[in-house]
């Protein structure tokens, strides 16, 4: 082993924990939520105001709840109830949808990553 080998080996092994810290840090909490019906934006709401509201889709009315900077579906006229079981969303980039009722919600925040671009 040459000296360059040892230096590189040490750098690689010592840098690993920092790589974990950097890529596994908690994502930033979202600030607003964007509610869509199909392709159209219904409304964009701030997450810091607790409220319950209804959104109408082709199947009927879905009810959503915002509380403590988080949002969830509390009822939806779909059969699977996947949207309700997904639970609370709070992190920037998080996404949930009730596909039968064509309603989707996405948390927006710093960085403005768009989870729907693929």
């Amino acid at each position, binding site marked *: *082993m*040459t*000296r*360059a*080998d040892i230096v*590189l*080996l040490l750098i*690689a*092994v010592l840098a*690993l924990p920092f*790589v*974990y810290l950097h*890529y*596994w840090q908690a994502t930033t909490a979202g600030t607003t939520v964007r509610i869509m019906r199909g392709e159209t934006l219904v409304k964009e709401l701030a997450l810091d105001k607790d409220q319950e509201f209804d959104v109408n889709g082709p199947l009927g009315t879905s009810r959503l709840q915002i509380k403590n900077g988080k949002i969830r579906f509390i009822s939806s006229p779909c059969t699977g109830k996947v949207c309700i079981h997904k639970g609370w969303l709070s992190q920037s*980039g998080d996404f949930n949808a009730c596909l039968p009722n064509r309603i989707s919600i996405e948390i927006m925040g710093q*960085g403005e*990553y768009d*989870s729907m*671009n*693929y």
Partner: protein
Amino acid sequence: MKITLKSTHEDSRIAWFTALAVTIHVLESSLPSPIPGLKPGLANIITITVLCQFGWRTAAWVSILRVLVGSLVLGTFLSPTFMLSLSGAVTSVFILGLGSKLPGRGFGPLGYSLLASIAHISAQFSCAYLLFIPHPGLWRLFPVLLSFAVALGIINGIISRSLLQHVAYKTP
């Protein structure tokens, strides 16, 4: 009219080593993998051994040809797998080129192998992110695969070093 192609000694050397690397590449692709994207990269042992023995030019040929021929054999030519493979190979060849310019005694097989595996995984992640899955969540997998890359880079380097110790005496 008769066309004659002159092949140099180096050409046949590249061909031999590429054949060896392709064989390993194809055999390795049949191994099951616990995590998507995780491969031992044993074919890189050949690249590193050739680099230490015959220099960067030969190693670059062997590495790039191995990806091309390997993908033709496996039927993944121009598929996403191939793009990832090629981006990794091109980047690690480039980084090895820079590494071999290091003054003094420079890197040994272990250093080269580690350098190549880190360059490989970083390039593949960037390529996957830019071309196929532009979602930041992809990078959550990066530390895990980087750890494996470092470990496998070291293991491959050790194999390459012992290979060189056994083979080097017999070549003129």
